[in-house]
């Protein structure tokens, strides 16, 4: 199982799922209506490191963070 958490304004509780790659996470998240307007503008971190490759392999206990558009300062 991996855990997906949604940061900042997304306002969605974390979900757990079976997924071997980030592509599989993407496929499952795309089924969720409330994420439809978020995914195309969100960046992704795996265990707190930013990632940029859908083929990234996942292992049991991994934590995936979904980061919406930012505006610090």
């Amino acid at each position, binding site marked *: 199982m991996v855990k997906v958490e949604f*940061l*900042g*304004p997304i306002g969605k509780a974390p979900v757990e799922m079976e997924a071997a790659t*980030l592509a599989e*996470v*993407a496929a499952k*998240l*795309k089924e969720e209506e409330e994420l439809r307007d978020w*995914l*195309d*503008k*969100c*960046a*992704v*971190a795996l265990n*707190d*490191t*930013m*990632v*940029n*490759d*859908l083929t990234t392999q996942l292992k049991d206990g991994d934590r995936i*963070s*979904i*980061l*919406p*558009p*930012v*505006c*610090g*300062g």
Partner: protein
Amino acid sequence: MELYHGPLDVKEIFGRWLDEEAESNYGAYIPFVGTIRAEDGIEALSFDIYEPVLKAWFDAWQEKAGERGAVVKMAHAIGDVPVHTSSYISAVFSPKRRVALELIDEFVEDFKANAPIWKYDVRNGERIYAEDRSTPMDGAGLLA
């Protein structure tokens, strides 16, 4: 990197940073202060921060600055920050001014684009995500 709940005590932090580097032989110290402006009827801005990724982002910048003989520092607020107070300050120390002037520009601009911080307007006590002023981070859209 320093995070505070509520507005920053700008004078204390800048004074302390100056003291910390007093003997470091830097010729230039360039501070930046971000202050909340009163506009569009807001009472305050409010901030969420994802600290682990912010720390990694800041550490990478510290390394980049170090390669140029410089040091970067920053402090940011979490939660509500009333108008006319400060939510963000940063600074660069370097041996000579040119590096510090260039770095403060690059550092603050990349901060706006890639630091994992979310901003909300506060009106009538309600937090409203500042979506129109927010920027997708590098690599956004991976899962779309």
